[in-house]
């Protein structure tokens, strides 16, 4: 499965990659574009070759920590309207505890390590780069 896509994310496709009769617990995480204030959507961009390598490293680390688990993720790029998913992660393991843990590990590591950026799109046509540190990204641009 491609880790980066410009198409709508399909949870069933991820489930098909991880589920099996010996894995009794499956956990799915979806990150969805919020309609904060006047945000109509988010334009996601990436340093694609590095993002793919980093995602593969994170998934390999997850499968080292939870050897009986199987984890997959897809991140969508391009303009995503509010209400649609930007990231989907599915983790399946023999028991739910490992499925939850592996899924949580992967989303937290993605946030810290994968070179992807989002630009919020507003009703009035303006755009704002999102800085998760909470600081304004440049003088004159709105604070997050």
């Amino acid at each position, binding site marked *: 499965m491609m880790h980066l896509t410009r198409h709508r994310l399909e949870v069933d496709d991820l489930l098909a990659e991880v589920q099996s009769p010996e894995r009794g617990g499956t956990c799915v995480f979806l990150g969805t574009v919020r309609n904060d204030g006047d945000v109509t959507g988010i334009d996601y*961009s990436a340093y694609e070759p590095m993002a793919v*390598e980093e995602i593969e490293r994170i998934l390999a680390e997850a499968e080292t920590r939870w050897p009986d688990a199987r984890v997959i993720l897809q991140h969508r790029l391009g303009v995503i309207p509010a209400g649609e998913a930007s990231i989907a992660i599915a983790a399946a393991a023999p028991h739910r505890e490992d499925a939850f843990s592996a899924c949580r590990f992967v989303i937290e590591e993605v946030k810290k390590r994968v*070179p992807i*950026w989002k630009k919020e799109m507003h009703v009035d046509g303006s755009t704002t780069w999102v800085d*998760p540190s909470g600081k304004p990204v*440049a003088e004159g641009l709105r604070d997050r």
Partner: protein
Amino acid sequence: MGRVSVRFFARYAELAGCTWSHVNLDTPATVGDVIARIREVFPGTQAMPARPLAALNLRQVTLDAPVTEGDEVALLPPLSGG
């Protein structure tokens, strides 16, 4: 003198005015030296933080990482995936 590819993303690409270029600098050099050269060649990038996130050949590195001829240095704004 060595030639290093440089890549800019998101807001930093807007500051640099391009997404890809290269700089020449004396080697041996570090990622920090490349960034100092970038600030000279692309004045808009002086608005970047003093110590921006950087990647060398697709891996995040610290600014003291050594670079050699042909390497690719990428400047990464604060990550906001997910």
